[in-house]
């Protein structure tokens, strides 16, 4: 087990106390460490893998006792059922709302973040604190009034309303991440562009944004996963079949399919497989984003 602050031991001839029993103890500790890692992974991934396994079993074997951990006769029947009942529409709705929210929040967010990072103006400190405060407002606490408001302006129950809400909810984290990122870019490049006659907006578009790939990716991923995963906001705002997002549809299946766990776990897998793929590809951006929101790591 490694302890905080342990510096790597210099490679030297083993000292006298590294006897056989020392080596055995070390091997034992490694084995213990491996067992602990396996246990952690089993707890973290177990429910997902068990859901995957269930979704691939024929209906007759899902409730078999004792349960099979790995389906012996895997089938895609539950996935096929979902597609014949039109799940692709909900997937499409989720994808459209997520992409629109990502584009909107990156556009608005990078403008604001650039101003906060590079321009001097009155009220900047207050704005920065506002951004941090907004990052910690929990969604459920504003749901009821938001629904009240959206209904009165006719934006409830529409994909437009959802995309706008997701944008507003994720903008603070986007601004915060980009603010940190823009601030860390060398300012000389921007000064050079200014001297060459670029306006502020041209400097942002032609110099800052092209250099900010990783920052934009981190911020975009946050919006994307939030909008794709969100259930609470969507279930409240949306009621028509045609504008349901995937999580709302899955919640609906819970009532419709009852204890029919085949289609239920299959729909769960459809929702999380894209997320896991994106996460594994870009996980270091997620990490930098998460710590950026709390402490710099």
């Amino acid at each position, binding site marked *: 087990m490694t*302890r*905080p*602050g*342990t510096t790597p031991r210099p490679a030297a001839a083993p000292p006298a106390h590294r006897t056989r029993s020392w080596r055995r103890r070390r091997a034992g500790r490694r084995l213990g460490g491996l067992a602990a890692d396996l246990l*952690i*992974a089993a707890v*973290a*991934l177990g*429910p*997902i893998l*068990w859901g995957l396994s*269930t979704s691939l079993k024929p209906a007759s074997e899902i*409730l078999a*006792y*004792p*349960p099979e951990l790995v389906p012996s006769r895997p089938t895609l029947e539950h996935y096929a059922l979902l597609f014949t009942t039109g799940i692709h529409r909900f997937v499409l709705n989720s994808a459209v709302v997520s992409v629109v929210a990502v584009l909107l929040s990156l556009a608005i967010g990078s403008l*604001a973040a*650039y*101003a*906060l*990072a590079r*321009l*001097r103006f009155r009220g*900047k400190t207050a704005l920065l604190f*506002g951004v*941090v405060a907004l990052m910690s*407002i929990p969604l*459920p*606490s*504003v*749901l*009821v*009034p*938001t629904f*009240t*408001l959206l209904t009165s302006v006719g934006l409830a129950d529409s994909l437009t309303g959802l995309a*706008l809400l997701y944008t*507003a909810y994720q903008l603070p984290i986007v601004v915060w991440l980009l603010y*940190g990122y823009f601030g860390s870019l060398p300012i000389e490049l921007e000064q050079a562009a200014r001297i060459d006659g670029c306006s502020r907006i041209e400097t942002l578009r032609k110099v800052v944004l092209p250099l900010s790939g990783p920052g934009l990716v981190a911020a975009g991923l946050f919006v994307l996963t939030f909008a794709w*995963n*969100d*259930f609470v906001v969507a279930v*409240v705002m949306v009621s028509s079949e045609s504008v349901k997002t995937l*999580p709302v549809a899955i*919640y609906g299946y*819970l009532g419709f399919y009852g*204890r029919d*766990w085949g289609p239920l*776990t299959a729909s769960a897998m459809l929702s999380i497989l894209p*997320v896991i793929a994106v*996460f594994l590809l870009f*996980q270091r951006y*997620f*990490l930098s984003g*998460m*710590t950026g929101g*709390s*402490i*710099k*790591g």
Partner: protein
Amino acid sequence: MSGERAIETKERQGLRRPPKARRSPEAATAWGFVLPLVVAELAFVAAPLALGAWYSLFRVDYFELTQFRGLGNYWTVLTSTMVQQSLVATLLFSAFSLLFTVGLGMALALRLEADTRTNTWMRAIVLVPYVISMLVGSLLLRWIYSRDAGLSGLLLGPFGLADFSLLADPATAMAALVSNAVWRDSAFAMIVLLAGLKAIPGQLYAAARVDGAGPWMRFTRITLPLLRVPILIAVVRLLIHFVNVLTFALVLTGGGPNNATQTTGLAMYRLGFVDFRIGEANALALLVFVFNLIMIGANLVLFRRGRSLSP
């Protein structure tokens, strides 16, 4: 590295000391740039809150304000048994979830601190429950905890409890709800604490070792005191999350049995979107929001201090 640090310091001063106010083209441009952000937040966060506060003072029938009630809705809400029960449920849920989430997060952070290849993978694995949708996570746990899955029978059968249903008994249903929170949110605690651990200079441990301090001594005398701010940040942010969360209870237990797991978030949802008692729902939402404001204030204070932790 040192260049980065210089910028860091400059930013930090920027946070504390506002630049001198002046009317300049730069300020005008700046306000133009932040305007869309301000408008979005005013329209979709501030305006709803203001409207909610207004609605909370009325009797509302299907979104029609019918009768001014003053603080009547607040009184109705605070004296209703459902809300009182939900406060107890929320308190229990948040306390246990916080305890186990931060504890497990700390254990994971200590274990996975060194940047080895295995640890990098393990961190990613631990984070998976956190990045997938809460709805889907709760759904998968509900499947595991249901008697249909056969897993509980397999695990508890040898103890003569094959017929036991976790979600049918108030105490174990609450335990299931807490486990849902711990399963998902320990990763968040781990990441925050990990960032804090990385900021502790290694020499401190080396010096303590030379002075003969054992692992426990080093943990309690160096790690814990220096992690105070990150721990508080994790606690405050998780507390905000737990007090408000409704997905876990809605999907995993549905608030049952006997409302034992009906948290305040779920009560608010029921009041507003199942019973359509919009006036009372807004009153409860605002009460919860006031608690959140206090926590957000704490978060801001800690956040300022947390920034000075950056390496």
